[in-house]
């Protein structure tokens, strides 16, 4: 079997067409595929649909985010748990485009988002959840009672691509995540037709314990080993302190 390892992030994202739908993993810093997002930004694909926890923020530390794709109007539609800042003083490019009617922004409760993606990867078209019943996000959707409680029907999400960050991968694409790096990564890897992975370490087939693999390689199409020099191996921990650092 041919190795799924490709030489560069550029090669990994080379086939992403205009109009693609893309799942982008990560929650905060851990598990965020910064290198693949940066490569996609350089690659130039436009008219994209992004599905992620959030896509509002641009950064001033040189790290390219999905916020940069939004800011350059290369995103037609987003499906997110955060479409605007929760701080009155902060505004994001996404929020401004949304207010101007220049982007379609679907907001969805985070657990519903995760389950829509999980369902997509599990071949289930829709499911009922109690989250959001009686609020704006359930308006216009089918409701049904089970055991005296009201639930809302939510539809699965599948996408053309998933951008994934992992700790270890083997050349077949079996993946292991470290700590909270896991977050959306395994479910997004299952819900895409083409799953692209940036790995902190790539090992030979047979080196990972099958019992400890989080994502089987059958869900993975391309793997890139993050280079020690020139790749964003890990953001410095200091960049993670969005609130007060504990002293």
């Amino acid at each position, binding site marked *: 079997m041919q190795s799924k390892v490709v030489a560069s992030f550029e090669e990994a994202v080379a086939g992403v067409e205009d109009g693609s739908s893309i799942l982008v993993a990560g929650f905060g810093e*851990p598990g965020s595929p910064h290198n693949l997002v940066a490569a996609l930004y350089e690659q130039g694909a436009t008219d994209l649909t992004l599905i992620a926890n959030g896509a509002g923020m641009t950064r001033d530390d040189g790290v390219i985010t999905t916020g940069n794709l939004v800011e350059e109007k290369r995103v037609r539609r987003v499906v997110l748990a*955060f*479409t605007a800042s929760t701080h009155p003083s902060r505004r994001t490019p996404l929020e401004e485009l949304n207010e101007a009617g220049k982007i379609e922004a679907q907001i969805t409760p985070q657990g519903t988002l995760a389950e829509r993606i999980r369902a997509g990867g599990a071949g289930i078209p829709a499911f009922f959840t109690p989250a959001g019943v009686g*609020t704006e*996000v359930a308006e216009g959707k089918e409701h049904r009672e089970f055991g005296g409680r009201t639930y809302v029907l939510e539809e699965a999400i599948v996408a053309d691509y998933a951008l994934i960050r992992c700790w270890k991968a083997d050349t077949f694409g079996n993946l292991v995540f470290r700590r909270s790096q896991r977050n959306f990564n395994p*479910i997004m890897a299952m819900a895409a037709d083409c799953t692209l992975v940036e790995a902190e370490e790539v090992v030979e087939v047979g080196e990972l314990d099958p019992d400890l693999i*989080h994502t089987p390689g059958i869900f993975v199409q391309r793997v890139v080993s993050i280079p020690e020099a020139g790749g964003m191996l890990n953001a410095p921990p200091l960049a993670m302190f969005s609130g007060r650092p504990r002293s």
Partner: protein
Amino acid sequence: MSVEGKRLSRDLMAARVAAEFDDGWVVNLGVGMPTRCSDFVPEDRTVILHSENGVIGYGRNATVEEATPYVVNGGAQPVLLTPLASIVHHADAFAIIRRGLLDVAVLGAYEAAANGDFANWRISGRKGGGIGGAMDLAVGAKQVFLLLEHTTRDGRPRLLERCALPLTAAGVVTLVMTDLGLFEPAGDSFRLREIAPGFSVDDVQQLTGAPVVPASDLREVTV
């Protein structure tokens, strides 16, 4: 209005909420002030802190030296793991919530209503917002505690008879901690259980958008 008291600090508010956690509870702490509670869990209790990104059993906030790029809480801040920690993916983190395993979710809010409704995802006059995990947590956890400042920056009350902002969930809030005291939504009023030192019930009433009814055993906030 003459007010002698000093509003409670964020750390004190977080510590007072953390003092409510029972031994063995599974607790989710929301973005903002609630994540502070992890630094104040009483030492005589084991509380299992759960976060939306799949970390079960995290502990206090990490120092700059302790932080790694691998372990963050629901506010994406670096935290430490406890010895009983385990990790699941995002969908399973919410399965735990929907399955009813959380004893309490502590959430921030823009508005809390006397009928137990709350609003915490969209600011007035804005399009879109940040729901995060709040709607799932609000309907999945056995109890919802709110941790918020009593008034807005321009002095308007956040505790109201009914929410004006779009709801996160209806009728779920059981406890409200503000910088003026500890309250319970009681339908058409807020029951005041504990009050910030130096404030009178009248002071609190003036800053509240719903009737405030002092508990018969009203006392000062202590931790």
